[in-house]
């Protein structure tokens, strides 16, 4: 964030003193415009270097350190470390310095490695060769040397090195084909040519770079000799984006307009907002509690210290004098003591928790991408993890917001029927959006109402039908893709018909065009400026395509203006019924079959003058540099009116495989599923029934425009609310449409009497297991999200979608899941997780989410627990050593406890634990309810763990205390000192916390055995080694032979065993009793699975 700001400032300075303007002027080929035309201001733009890396070799250490210390926990430990360096503290700075160093190093290595990968990628991109035209010659240079205004030559199958404006193409029609698969997953579209390149003398004015891929406004001024410059509009369709690939075109010339970090691709890949999981929030809350405990401990001890040493004999007995230096600083001594206690107890804040959590998330997320069950053979891709920060949030989802088209359904459209002038036609042949050879499409439409004319239909087209099918053939943005190019010889589109297939950003259109093709309305598509619409009998009708009024999701329709061979101007329009009907003056359409996507087709005959006027409006809007979108919308609004309705088409979108099963599982898991769709109510409702979102028993509540027109919104809301509250046990489903929703969400101005609709609506929603929102604008999807997120329970929401229109909701939700669908990759790219199919959501949430949640919950609780066990004895010891901040444990133990003795088992646990088997989780979705609402990290659970920690600490300390109390426990009568005391406690501590984890482990693979027993063994070996040698570099030898001497004593062994048993006992009892008295569903499932497995095993053996 701050860096982009910085960059802005820098680039501002680079540009010079001039005022920051909204547009930039690009001089094509760096040629100055003719004098007088305009002042030539050479502007400076960044070069074409792509920098996705965060660090350079030089700034890595300072910058990375800075970033890491911005984290509150790291900063805390840094402060502790500095305090240790400055004041005289009980423990050496190493004890907190080394773990901090370890944590920082591990994080730095991880980040450095990631950055190194980015550097490598950047390097290979920046150094790839590019052909540039300089002084009429083609010069080969490196990509990063490109500058704005350079004319670039791109050959077929090369990717564009920066954002370019097409100047000329090798194709005879002057267009070129590009695929933007790597950007948005769309396969190809065509870019119209502008101008011959040779003698081009022009400037391009365009807006400053902005990240929206589909927006570009600009203008090209072409200077001819001593003439007024000719201005032409430039739109998004003229722009060749960096990352796209040139197809079907030998070479093109294009001019660079945005380079380097200013390309749309680079702008798009900039960091997304950080999402924080609920677990992280509770983790921070716990940290604050522990910080309070820490401070209060330090305060209590400081106060007690001064109370205790009030008498000078205690403060300074003859055997223990202060130095002169220590005596002098009376004033700040109390504060120094406080700090010293803070340092002594600082380990209660688990230093390595953050790094362990980070490692767990980072490594754990691999299991998602490795999962074979989430791999889709068809797509050739598995699940994809874009952020590993939210793994556990997958186990906490309460609301699922799903898009319908492409998410619940295949987005594989099939032209089912059409309705012309009130008559319904149904083609029998089934086409799945695939190419059918022309021969096999013996096409027949059964003409309801004209049964006798079924076969003769093709010959007896009435005028409306004629127009209707023509409209369908003309009014689209579909392109034809050639199948293959053979040895560089390209088959023309018209000849290549049998091997061609259609590509469009909208699958509906493909389905329609396919349908038309089956009806033998062959089209020569969008060639230059015309469309050849040929009929079955070979008679072609030529239309000249004049304007395309592109589809957008606000208007929900598109139009074309064509000129027929007879010279008539026709405006064909197709779009959603709601957007067409208000603009229709005549014509009727019958209700088509339910559950299908319908599009209405209408037309309008334009007179010459009307056409000119329309042209004028369009040109004006298109040339505008500012507010072009808005002006275009206005222009469209003026042109698209007074339609005559021709008919409607119906396209079926089949449900995705196992969608119903998935939805059912989500319901059983206690999630509320909301379907948000732009489709009309009937279609959406049918899909919902098919996908079992609504079951037969579901009582449907309707909150639609139709109803609110009859009654007031207020009455309807209250009535529904009453219904919901009256019958609790029933399963409710709610249907609401976009218009009503915006009415509900509108801030209420009518006064307090009506109450707040928002609250009532939420109350209704809370009681509905399924909600269907239809007729939604993309922005409304995010609004609904916002509404639920802001409700007072703050539920965790998940959004899943596949299209660009779902991006806002995916970004808004706590967890955003993208489906790698047909509508491009935008959703998948902006999501936190991307999956190939909707059905994979089930495993993602019920299995992976569940696992990650219990893993991380245990991780967090265990970390706090083990540090309470660790530090609380030290606190108790202060009462027996005159509050002198004497540490109980040796420096090595203090240092290594968190980073090596107890770190690996919990990390491994948090990676591989499976408390219930995967199959059980999938079989019984209701187990998901057991972990809902962050149940394992609630305050009572946290309190339990903390109390357990305190209990264990008390057991350790007083166990050792009574053992040491004024007696010996060796067989040779020799005495042990304070370090043996600490080592005994520490040994019990390490064994107890490791065995506690072992008790919690339900899934013992060989790795668990290895790590748990291995880390205990490591502790023993380390202690033997640490005490076995006089370490020359240490200036104290306090641990020399302490551990061995301790082990040579029988009672020490006995007490270690006893203390471990006692401290583990309560937890075991609690577990057993809870399981016996009130088992949770999970615990039942564990036992069931066990008996099932045994049973299975038994059968297996018998066979």
């Amino acid at each position, binding site marked *: 964030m701050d860096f982009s700001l910085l960059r802005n400032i820098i680039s501002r300075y680079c540009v010079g003193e001039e005022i920051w303007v909204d547009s930039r002027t690009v001089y094509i080929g760096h040629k100055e415009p003719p004098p007088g035309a305009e002042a030539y201001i050479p502007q400076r733009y960044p070069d074409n270097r792509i920098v996705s890396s965060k660090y350079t070799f030089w700034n890595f250490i300072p910058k990375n350190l800075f970033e890491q210390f911005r984290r509150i926990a790291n900063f805390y430990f840094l402060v502790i470390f500095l305090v240790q360096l400055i004041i005289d503290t009980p423990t050496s700075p190493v004890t907190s310095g080394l773990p901090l160093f370890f944590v920082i190093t591990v994080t730095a290595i991880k980040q450095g490695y990631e950055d190194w990968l980015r550097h490598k990628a950047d390097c290979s991109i920046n150094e790839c060769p590019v052909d540039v035209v300089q002084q009429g010659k083609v010069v080969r240079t490196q990509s990063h040397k490109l500058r704005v205004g350079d004319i670039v030559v791109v050959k077929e199958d090369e990717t564009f090195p920066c954002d370019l404006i097409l100047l000329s193409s090798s194709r005879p029609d002057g267009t070129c084909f590009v695929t933007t698969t790597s950007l948005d997953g769309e396969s190809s579209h065509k870019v119209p040519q502008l101008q011959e390149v040779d003698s081009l003398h022009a400037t391009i004015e365009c807006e400053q770079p902005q990240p929206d891929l589909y927006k570009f406004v600009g203008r090209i001024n072409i200077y001819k000799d001593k003439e007024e410059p000719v201005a032409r509009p430039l739109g998004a369709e003229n722009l060749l984006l960096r990352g796209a690939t040139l197809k079907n075109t030998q070479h093109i010339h294009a001019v660079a307009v945005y380079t380097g970090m200013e390309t749309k691709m680079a702008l798009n890949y900039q960091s997304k907002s950080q999402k924080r999981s609920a677990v992280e929030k509770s983790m921070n809350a716990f940290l604050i509690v522990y910080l309070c405990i820490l401070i209060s401990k330090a305060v209590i001890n400081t106060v007690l210290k001064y109370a205790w040493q009030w008498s000078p004999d205690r403060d300074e007995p003859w055997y223990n004098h202060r130095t002169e230096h220590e005596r002098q600083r009376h004033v700040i001594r109390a504060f120094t003591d406080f700090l010293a206690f803070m340092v002594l107890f600082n380990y209660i804040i688990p230093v390595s928790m953050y790094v362990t959590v980070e490692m767990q998330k980072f490594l754990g997320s691999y299991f998602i991408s490795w999962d074979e069950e989430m791999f889709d053979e068809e797509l050739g891709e598995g699940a994809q993890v874009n952020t590993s920060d939210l793994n556990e949030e997958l186990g906490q989802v309460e609301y699922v917001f799903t898009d319908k088209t492409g998410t619940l359904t295949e987005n594989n459209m099939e032209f089912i029927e059409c309705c012309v002038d009130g008559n319904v036609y149904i083609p029998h042949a089934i086409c799945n959006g695939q190419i059918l050879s022309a021969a096999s499409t013996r096409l027949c439409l059964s003409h309801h109402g004209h049964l006798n004319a079924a076969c003769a239909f093709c010959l007896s087209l009435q005028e409306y039908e004629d127009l209707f099918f023509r409209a369908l053939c003309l009014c689209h943005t579909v392109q034809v893709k050639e199948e293959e190019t053979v040895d560089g010889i390209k088959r023309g589109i018209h000849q290549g018909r049998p091997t061609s297939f259609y590509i469009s950003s909208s699958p509906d259109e493909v389905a329609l065009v396919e349908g038309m093709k089956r009806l033998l309305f062959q089209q020569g598509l969008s060639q230059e400026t015309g469309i050849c619409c040929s009929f079955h009998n070979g008679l072609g009708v030529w239309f000249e395509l004049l304007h395309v009024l592109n589809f957008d999701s606000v208007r929900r329709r598109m139009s074309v203006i064509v000129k027929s061979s007879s010279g008539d101007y026709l405006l064909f329009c197709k779009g959603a019924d709601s957007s067409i009907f208000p603009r229709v003056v005549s014509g009727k359409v019958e209700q088509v079959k339910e559950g299908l996507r319908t599009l209405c087709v209408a037309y309008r005959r334009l007179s010459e003058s009307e056409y000119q006027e329309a042209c004028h409006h369009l040109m004006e809007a298109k040339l505008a540099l500012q507010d072009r979108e808005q002006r275009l919308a206005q222009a469209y609004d003026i042109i698209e009116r007074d339609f005559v309705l021709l008919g409607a088409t119906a396209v079926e979108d089949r449900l995705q495989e196992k969608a119903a099963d998935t939805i059912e599982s989500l319901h059983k898991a206690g999630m509320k599923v909301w379907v948000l769709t732009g489709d009309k109510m009937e279609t959406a409702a049918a899909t919902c029934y098919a996908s079992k979102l609504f079951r037969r028993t579901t009582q449907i509540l309707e909150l639609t425009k139709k109803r609110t027109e009859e009654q007031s919104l207020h009455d309807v809301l209250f009535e529904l609310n009453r219904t919901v509250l009256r019958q609790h046990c029933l399963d409710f489903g709610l249907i609401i449409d976009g218009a009503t929703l915006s009415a509900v969400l509108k801030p209420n101005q009518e006064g307090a009497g009506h109450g707040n609709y928002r609250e009532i609506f939420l109350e209704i929603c809370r009681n509905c297991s399924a909600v269907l929102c239809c007729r939604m604008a993309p922005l409304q999807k995010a609004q609904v999200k916002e509404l639920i997120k802001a409700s007072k329970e703050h539920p965790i929401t998940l959004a899943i979608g596949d299209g660009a229109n779902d991006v806002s909701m995916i970004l808004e939700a706590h967890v955003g899941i993208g489906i790698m669908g047909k509508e491009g990759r935008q959703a998948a790219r902006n999501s936190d997780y991307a999956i190939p199919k909707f059905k994979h959501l089930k495993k993602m949430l019920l299995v992976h989410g569940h696992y990650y949640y219990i893993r991380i919950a245990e991780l967090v609780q265990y970390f706090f627990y083990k540090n309470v066990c660790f530090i609380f004895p030290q606190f108790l010891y202060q009462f027996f050593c005159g509050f002198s901040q004497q540490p109980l444990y040796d420096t090595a133990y203090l240092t290594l406890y968190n980073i090596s003795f107890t770190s690996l088992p919990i990390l491994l646990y948090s990676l591989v634990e499976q408390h219930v088997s995967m199959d059980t989780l999938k079989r019984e979705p209701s187990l998901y309810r057991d972990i809902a609402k962050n149940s394992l990290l609630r305050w009572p659970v946290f309190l339990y763990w903390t109390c357990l920690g305190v209990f264990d600490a008390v057991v350790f300390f007083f166990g050792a205390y009574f053992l040491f109390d004024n007696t010996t426990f060796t067989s040779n009568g020799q005495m042990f000192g304070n370090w043996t005391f600490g080592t005994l406690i520490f040994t019990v501590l390490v064994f107890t916390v490791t065995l506690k984890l072992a008790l919690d482990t339900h899934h013992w693979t060989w790795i668990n055995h290895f790590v748990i027993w291995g880390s205990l063994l490591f502790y023993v070996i380390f202690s033997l080694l640490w005490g076995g040698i006089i370490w020359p570099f240490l200036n104290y030898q306090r641990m020399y032979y302490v551990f061995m001497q301790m082990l040579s004593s029988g*009672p020490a062994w006995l007490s270690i065993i006893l203390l471990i048993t006692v401290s583990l006992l309560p937890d075991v009892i609690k577990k057993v009793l809870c399981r016996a008295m009130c088992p949770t569903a999970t615990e039942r499932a564990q036992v069931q699975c066990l008996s099932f497995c045994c049973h299975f095993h038994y059968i297996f053996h018998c066979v």
Partner: protein
Amino acid sequence: MMASSYNAKEEDGHHSGASSGTGVSKNKKPDNTAFKQQRLPAWQPILTAGSVLPAFFVIGLIFIPIGIGLYVTSNNIKEFEIDYTGVSSDSPCYNCAKNFTWNTTEPCVCTVNFTLHQPFESNVFMYYGLSNFYQNHRRYVKSRDDRQLNGDLSALTDPSKECEPYRKSGDVSIAPCGAIANSLFNDTLVLYYVDSNNSISEIPLVKKGIAWWTDKHVKFRNPAGNGNLTLAFKDTAKPVNWAKPVYELDPLDPENNGFINEDFIVWMRTAALPTFRKLYRIIQKKSGATPTLPNGNYMLNITYNYPVLSFDGRKRLILSTISWMGGKNPFLGIAYITVGSICFCLGVVLLIIHHKYDNRNTSADIPS
């Protein structure tokens, strides 16, 4: 001990399906290994009442006998303790304690009489005990220089800063430096047996073997000085509170003199708690059937050098026999018996619960 099942899901060998994919998809397809698919064979123990039950009984059955054994052993140990601080005016050392000054040349001697009612059969260990003495105070614990004590010559003349304010005496560095060494316990205790006809015989006290072997032989070393300790310590001063320098701690025995003096080593091992005891001497068992310390009257002769009243401390003499489990300490035995019984009781409770709830659970589960 725990109910368990071995859940081996062998997923390997199912790879044939992947080969049919295209080249691209094959590269991206995740490996079908048990680890990556999280299907490693695993032992899945569950803590249920039924499975934990036997463990509780076993723990109970093991712990109770151990506890009884420990308790009996502890009870068989004979221990005698006497406070000779001299707080009350009727105690023999009252005068010595009251009139204590640091710079007396004439040591104060007092004698305490006591009676042992039971004979001490085996080796008897003689301890001195101090109370309210914070040997575990941080300032105290760190006030030593292990390098110096290990015979390091540079540390001998330039001790560690940790030793302050007992680092240098004037300009000469102190050996051994630090507060611990400075406050070395220097009462001399001599034990006499008064037999029935009032004849007094001194009991031989062994001063070898009271410190850890490793401490005496590895951790503590005299600085090299060609066998002449006086020469080795010639540039150093004695600790301020000591009456004589370190090389005169035991002039008679060169193996017990200087830093490797066992009394000194014992003192240098700082105690864990403010009330502690330290091994002073060992009374070896005589050969034959005579007890080491027969019952009867004894006389303890104390050279009172060590002041404790200023910080309200106490000094004690402890005579104790030792078993394999050390001195008298009933705690471990009682704890074992308690924990064992609790486990046994819990076992019974769990048995009831198991029978009561398990039936209910299984009956509830079967229909589903």
